[in-house]
């Protein structure tokens, strides 16, 4: 029998398609990786009435798409999707299997990896091919303060969940044509052991803070509620948004909507100006994807100051006031 063509697989996670672009981002990165190891990029799509997604994945760079379209696959289900994926992986033996680190992906991938007896790296923010041809996976730890490079040397496939937003998708190309392989529904799929009682889409809230290019973040080091209000003026001038730490929200200096942190909003501004924030892990986990960071704090040894591109050792409120003044002078019209 001829050797199987090497392949890199991406799990097609199409729920919340317009907010959740992670599958497209992974197809794009899989193309880069595939060039490095001479492989094809395959995507799986499980569900019912999924032609639209098959088309989308084809236009965004998939080479081959395995589709299993059946009414019994209508709802996302761990038990059922894992059994189906296990079957396909055992049959086609991909080198690499990438899954978006959505809530579903982060529950689906660990059980699947366990069943396949292979390694899995969580929530990666970097994927590369090393000199030895292994997939080098970069994953955050300690709230993003540390990064770890991880490989799976022996077991296959090399599996990773990948944080949404890590890679750029390939632009839509209407002429791209992936090979579509229809997979018949296996007759020995298990029943789902979890019963879905209800699933209600949450109203889309304003995503302004999460999407802002500039965020001005304040902590208790701003000194008082009154001084904290100046951050809103600064944010207005910069066309940005205001974020806050938990102690600030507890002190009612800012609304809960502004809360940035590990269990709260994760922000990714191009410029982050951080005022009077020491940098507790609960906060820094929410800002680890910020680009250029300016931190202002009286304590030069604060964690936040160490994370910054520019660390300003001074009173946070005074620097805020000086910045507002200077910006007003410089911005004409």
């Amino acid at each position, binding site marked *: 029998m001829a050797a199987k063509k090497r392949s890199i697989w991406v799990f097609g996670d199409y729920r*919340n398609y317009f907010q959740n672009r992670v599958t497209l981002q992974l197809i794009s990165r899989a193309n880069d990786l595939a060039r490095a190891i001479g492989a094809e990029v395959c995507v799986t799509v499980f569900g019912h009435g999924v032609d639209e997604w098959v088309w989308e994945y084809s236009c965004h760079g998939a080479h081959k798409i395995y589709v299993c379209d059946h009414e019994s696959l209508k709802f996302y289900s*761990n038990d059922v999707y894992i059994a189906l994926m296990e079957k396909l992986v055992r049959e086609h033996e991909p080198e690499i299997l990438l899954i978006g680190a*959505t809530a*579903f992906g*982060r*529950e689906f991938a*660990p*059980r699947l990896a*366990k*069943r396949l007896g292979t*390694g*899995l790296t*969580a*929530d990666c923010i970097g994927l590369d091919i090393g000199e030895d041809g292994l997939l080098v996976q970069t*994953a*955050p730890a*300690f*709230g993003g*303060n*540390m*990064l*770890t*490079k*991880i*490989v*799976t*040397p022996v*077991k296959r496939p090399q599996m990773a969940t990948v944080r949404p937003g890590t890679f750029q998708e390939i632009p839509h190309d209407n002429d791209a044509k992936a090979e579509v392989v229809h997979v018949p529904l296996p007759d020995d799929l298990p029943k789902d*052991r*979890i019963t879905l*009682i*209800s*699933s*209600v889409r*949450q109203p*889309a809230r304003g995503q302004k803070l999460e999407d802002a290019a*500039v965020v001005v973040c304040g902590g208790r080091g701003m000194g008082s509620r009154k001084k904290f209000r100046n951050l809103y003026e600064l944010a207005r001038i910069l*066309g940005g948004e205001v974020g806050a730490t938990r102690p600030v929200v507890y002190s009612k200096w800012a609304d809960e909507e502004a809360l940035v942190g*590990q*269990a709260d909003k994760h922000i990714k501004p191009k*410029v982050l100006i951080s005022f009077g924030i020491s940098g507790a*892990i*609960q906060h820094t986990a929410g800002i*680890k994807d910020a680009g*250029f960071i*300016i931190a202002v704090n009286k304590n030069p040894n604060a964690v936040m100051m*160490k994370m*910054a*591109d*520019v*660390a*300003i*050792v*001074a*009173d946070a409120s*005074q620097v805020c006031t*000086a*910045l507002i003044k*200077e910006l007003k002078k410089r911005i*004409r019209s």
Partner: protein
Amino acid sequence: MVKMIVCMKQVPMVSELPWDRKTGLLRREAADGMMNPACKSALEAALRIKEEHGGHITAITMGPPMAREILHEALAMGADRCLMVSDHIMAGADTMATSFTLARAIETYCSDFDLILCGCHTSDSETAQVGPQLAEELDIPSIAMVDDLRLAGRRLRIERVSDHFLETLEMDLPGLVTVTTAHFTPRYIPMAGLQDAFQEPNILTAGAHDLGIEEGQSGIKGSPTQILEVFSSTAGKQNVVMTGAPKKIVEDLFALYEDSIGSVIRKDLKAVK
């Protein structure tokens, strides 16, 4: 009576991280340990089930001997007994090896469980994988990232937010859940509990031999993944330090970065002549 197991991990108290300035690495051995916050919420969830339905709680941790501290804390909060799984051949286990080891411990010491509760993720390695993988290893159903739960007979009803959907799900026991910190704020530890927890701690200890685990099945050797390198994510930052009077600092800041900041906010920030 509901027989529950709560799996917990000791993590470094990371709000005060001791850093090695030269290497940018965390001096993990110098950090104080604490019970991972989500694990504490899992214990709280178990305690509430016990209060409502009656029950028995076994807290399990796997780690170096120092991790025993969090088991004392678990007893003080109200766990009935604890199991400390520790062995040098378990060191460096990834989530596959950890879930394998925990599953053997559960089969050996408390195989008649109804419900296993884990924290949804840990604050150190943040994988969120051990819970689901433990369920897979034990071949029981699992639901991850649970915000709230309620037990009715042998059926567990849970609520969670999953990818922008508010979901209500049900699962028959035995099963496993991983719990978020959203609803289950841990209780304060009563003095009496604290005293008992240290005077007569009901803590069993198990090594690899007790669990029938051989070298190569746990620890680094039993782990499919391998860590190549750990580094500080702040490496690569310029970390320019500015001091002095606020007005002067702001002038310096613009002198250096007026173009880069200006391009982000799409405004010309050059000083007005």
